[in-house]
């Protein structure tokens, strides 16, 4: 299988409030994922799962080590290249959906396509967004605003938004954290379907063993180390 994501000796630490010593989040983390694979990262709160996801998604810079996505080191990206990388290669699903309240459901889906990196415009974009909403089962809600739909629906909108630029890597940071069991299941089923149907590489951070089980691999982040279980 083609190697898609590779983390080599990735470390992250923050300056402590006292200033002298640094707080180590994790160190020398290594990970490899092939294209179209799926994996879950589990671990106790504060272990650095989300931080790791942010480093992979180029939302943050590592203290040391390298992140390779599709053979490219993200650490060498300029700010613009980082933006383009996030926009074109990554689909991010946050625990909190982060939908724009002033935009309708379909507009929220379209927002990443307007960043100026892709080729989708006008009717084509609208068509794509509609199809994605159909895929996540929200075609009947496309002209509603975020305030007018449920939490589960919001998260599905976030999924559709993450997919609009046809990314290679889908990063989901506790996507079911604010959802009930039924909605959680629906969402994870959707992510798994997408992983299989679109050959997307899926990396999910979760506390739920059930969700982790649905992934092809599971890693435990604990005591500043990542280990496959």
């Amino acid at each position, binding site marked *: 299988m083609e190697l898609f994501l590779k983390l080599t000796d990735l470390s992250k630490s923050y300056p402590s409030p006292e200033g002298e010593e640094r707080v180590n989040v994790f160190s020398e983390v290594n990970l490899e994922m092939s294209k179209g694979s799926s994996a879950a990262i589990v671990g106790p709160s504060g272990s650095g799962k*989300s*931080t790791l996801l*942010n480093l992979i*998604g180029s*939302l*943050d810079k590592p203290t040391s080590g390298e992140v390779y996505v599709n053979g490219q080191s993200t650490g060498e990206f300029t*700010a*613009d290249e980082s*933006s*383009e*990388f*996030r*926009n*074109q290669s*990554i689909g*991010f699903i*946050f*625990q*909190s959906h*982060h939908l*724009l*309240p*002033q*935009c*309708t459901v*379909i*507009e929220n889906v*379209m*927002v*990443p396509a*307007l*960043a*100026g*990196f892709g080729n989708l*415009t*006008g009717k084509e974009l*609208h068509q794509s967004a509609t199809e994605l909403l159909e895929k996540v089962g929200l075609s009947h809600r496309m002209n509603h*605003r975020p*305030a007018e739909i449920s939490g589960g629906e919001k998260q599905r909108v976030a999924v559709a*938004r993450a997919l609009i*630029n046809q990314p290679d890597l889908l990063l989901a940071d506790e996507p079911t954290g604010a959802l009930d069991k039924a909605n959680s299941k629906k969402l994870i089923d959707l992510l798994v379907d997408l992983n299989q149907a679109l050959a997307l590489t899926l990396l999910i951070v979760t506390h739920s063993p059930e969700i982790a089980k649905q992934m092809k691999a599971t890693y435990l982040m604990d005591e500043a180390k990542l280990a496959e279980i």
Partner: protein
Amino acid sequence: MSLWRIILNNLFYFRRQNLGVALGVALCAMVLIGALTVGDSVRSTLSKIAEARIGKADMALLATDGFFREELAKEILRKLASGTVVAPVVVSRGTISLPDGSGRVGNVQVLGVDEDFWKLAPNIAHSPIGSRTDEKNWPEWGGDNFYANDRLYKLLNLPDLGRIILRIEEPSLFSRDAPLSGERDNKFVSFNGKLSGPVSADGFGHFGIQGNQREPLTLFIPLSTLQNRMFRSFDKEKENTNFANFLLLGKPELGSVSEESARLALEESWTLEDAGVTIQPLRDTSDFSVRARQVFLNPSLEKAAQSIDLNATGVLTYLVNSIRSNNLEGNGTRLIPYSMVSAVDPKKVLFMPEDWEKDEIMLNQWAIDDLGVKIGDSITLSYFSVGERRKLVKGTKKFTLRGVSPNPPAIVKGEESDWTPQYPGLSDAETCGEWDTGIPITHKIRPKDEEYWNQHRGSPKAYISLQAGKELWTNRWGSLTGLRFSREIHSPEIIEKKLKNLMTAKQAGLIFQPLRADAKAGTDSPVDFGQLFLSFSLFVIIAALALAGMLFTFSIEQRNNQAGLLLALGLSKKKVRLLVLSEGLCVSLFGVLIGGGLAFIYGQSMISLLSGDWSGAVSGTTFEYTIQVQSILGGGIAALLMSICTMAWSTRKQLKFEPRELLLAGENLNLSNFKQKKKKWNRSFCFSLLLFIGVVVVCLTTDFRAAGASEGYFGAGAILLLSGIFYFRYYLGKKIGLQTAVLKSAQDLSNRNMGRRTGRSLVTMASMAAGTFLVVSTGAFRKGSPVSSENPLSGTGGFSLIGESALSVYDDLNGAAGRELYDLNESLLQNTHIVPMRLREGDDASCLNLNKAIRPKIYGVNPNEMAGRFSFADGDWSKLKRRLPNGKIPAVVDQNTMMWALKKGIGSEIQFLDGEGRIFSVQLVAAVKGSILQGALYIPEDKFVQKFPQQGGYRSFLISVPISETPKIQSYLEDKFSNYGMELSESIIRLSELQKVENTYLLIFQGLGGLGMLLGTVVLAVVVARNLIERSGEFGTMEALGYRLKDLRSLAFSEHFTLALWGLGVGAISAFLAIAPAVVGKVGQFPGKEFISFFILLVFLSFGWIKISVYFVLRKSQIEHLQYE
């Protein structure tokens, strides 16, 4: 732990936000307190000017149109408490010239004063009798040592103290307008005196009766020096010159003279002589006659005298040009020139039968013999009466000879007939050839006439009935020249006593003026500068309050979840609100304290500007910065209340939410509920459309070039502004909630964001739009310098020159007779027309005087001469011809004077005292728009002379002359009338001076409004920063979704700059419509480069602030806001 502890913790913990709020409040307090201290300073300065003007005097007694005995001062003094000073003064006007002819100053107030006057000086040490005279090397007060006040002294500009020549008018016994008043040209008295020094304000150099802030040009002369020359012909019989026309009363040491005690003292002290009334024993009978110094008995005197005895015999003796026989067959001379004729009631004299008809005449034997007429013959009397502008109007009347009276007894030189009053220029003439009656002598005076004069003086040669006499010779001064009482019934002493009891001092023309009370009332400026600056600073106040309110709201919104928590913990909404507002109160209090300190700087800056760049608004007065405690307290409390109200209003919605909502939603609680507002947005569009239609209608129906176009288009601009604001509201709604099209670009997202905080965006846009509109459009009301004075409908009324003289000119300067009399060059003046106006001195009610005009000046004008001149806001000159009920007199007034100085409207009435101290009402019937007529009331001339019969001649002149000839005519007339102190100025200059005041007010408004607007852009910056901070999470998301930070900055900038441009655009377009008449129709002044530069500055400032705010908030990645989750 108490609630106060929570408040204190909040104050400290959120100190940065609170400091911002406090600064906003401080700004508001600074402007409020500062503006009030400007008012304090103006009032205090005016009060000091008034104090300097009246010194230690409390009251003034004026003889409205005559002179009283100087002795009256002492008599009044005796009846007043010790320590009182009553100073007799002679007030006159004159011209001063230098002996070498190198300089001349006209229209100078000349004061004949004695040492008592100086005792009432603000500081006697500085007066000519004060202790400092030695330091100044001033000579002893008296003799021919004259003193000028500092203003006159500077104007005379004598290198060394030298001699000056003063020329004043010798007072006439009675008005020179009156028939037989003597010489036709004025008599002058000249003084050659030594100018001994300048009298400062402290030394009483600024003394004046009128409540004007600028002191008059005053020359002080020792009283006796002035009296000896001025009154040399006044009382030849007694050779008395001790007269005065003004008393000044005051208590220099302690206390003040009460009005009541002064009036009481006057009523007890005045005599008939002070009113110019004499009881004269008759030579030929035992009767005696009541006579007036003014020859004709005024109506009050006549009424009072007749009320004592209805049988008193009224006599009217008049000089006729000729007594002519119409009997062609007679053998006499047919004409007797220049004779006295007495009119008397036939029922009250024995020598006329009771059934005497009014067309019957009795001649004395001398006349019968001279004319050779017999009973039944027709006799014609020809005479002159005095018409308008002292034009002699010839009249004739035919009578039938019915009786003959014996020849009059011989009269010794220097005396006069019992029947004839002392006519000036006549009674004192040695021979007929010396007569100076003011009428042309066209008939030859024969030796027999001279003989009659020598023997019988002015004894009448004919008698007619009083009824006939009154019909022929009644004039505005009276209808009798004497009233005879029988000594068998009355004694002169009793009559004198009764007459005095029947008349008041006022009726005798002696009128008290409460100087101190008037000065106090006068300093209540018609323009309250405190309020004026408050209104001018409105935008600064609004901007400061908006800033404080917004910062406070932001600070509170940040703590929505805390409020939710407190509610969840069981605190009542009332208590939570109390916590919020108590925190606001503490912050506001702190802000007010800072603002109070800053107010000194602000107030002083305003006062400096008023004394400098803005001095046009205050006629160059220099103000002292003064602060009243009540202004600091009032302004501080007002700022505190306003900021608390703003805070309460801006946070009013917070506690309407449930605790759960507050806990969950945090600071994004107030996001719009789009569907609920859909109806409102559609309604906004309808309003906008309706208002726009209104704008179109106003524009289509208002002529750009017509008078009133500025006001009309200002209204249209204001409506367009509202329409624009409503449309923007709809636009916001459309962007956020009514849109049908989906996003096409990231720019669409930016536009839509504008509508997220509809209220915030709308307030920002509307305040910028309103500010831009008002600041720019008020420029349209600035008056441009008049280009030509020749347009009769302009503010000059078509008059190129305007002026006043110190002394009255009595004759018509347009007529051949008048021009001949004054030796005026007919060909030079062929294109010149002079409109004279009678003047009753009073307070200047123009905008050049900051004092309240208690008694405005009155001009008497001929409405026919003014017809078609000036533009009227209401009515026209013909309204002066209206007959008003209850004896009210109509008046035309300048609109600015009416509105601002007098605070009146059309139909309002103002009360004045006439020449006899009686109250009469003047009703405002027409208002002239922005003109040189500012500062006074204009009443019909005929009514003027009725009310002020003793006030003769004209002292004010409006002169129409082609512009090219203006300078030449100005210097010619000033030269010709130099003895009269005539000073002319170009009416355009006068109008510009008046307009400068108005323009400066607008400039101040624009300046402070502009400052408010500039501060408003700071509010914009705060709004931008706040909006962006609120949306940091969104920006983080968008960054996570691949948006570049620079793109996000550009989107944020575009969103907010669009908002600013909407405000500036709507404001500018509306303002442009408002100034359209100035731009297109040349009505008013085009705001010009100020308008453009102000607008550009606003655009740049908005641009700059938004850039700074965007950069400040989005200078680094917002992704960290996602990470904090």
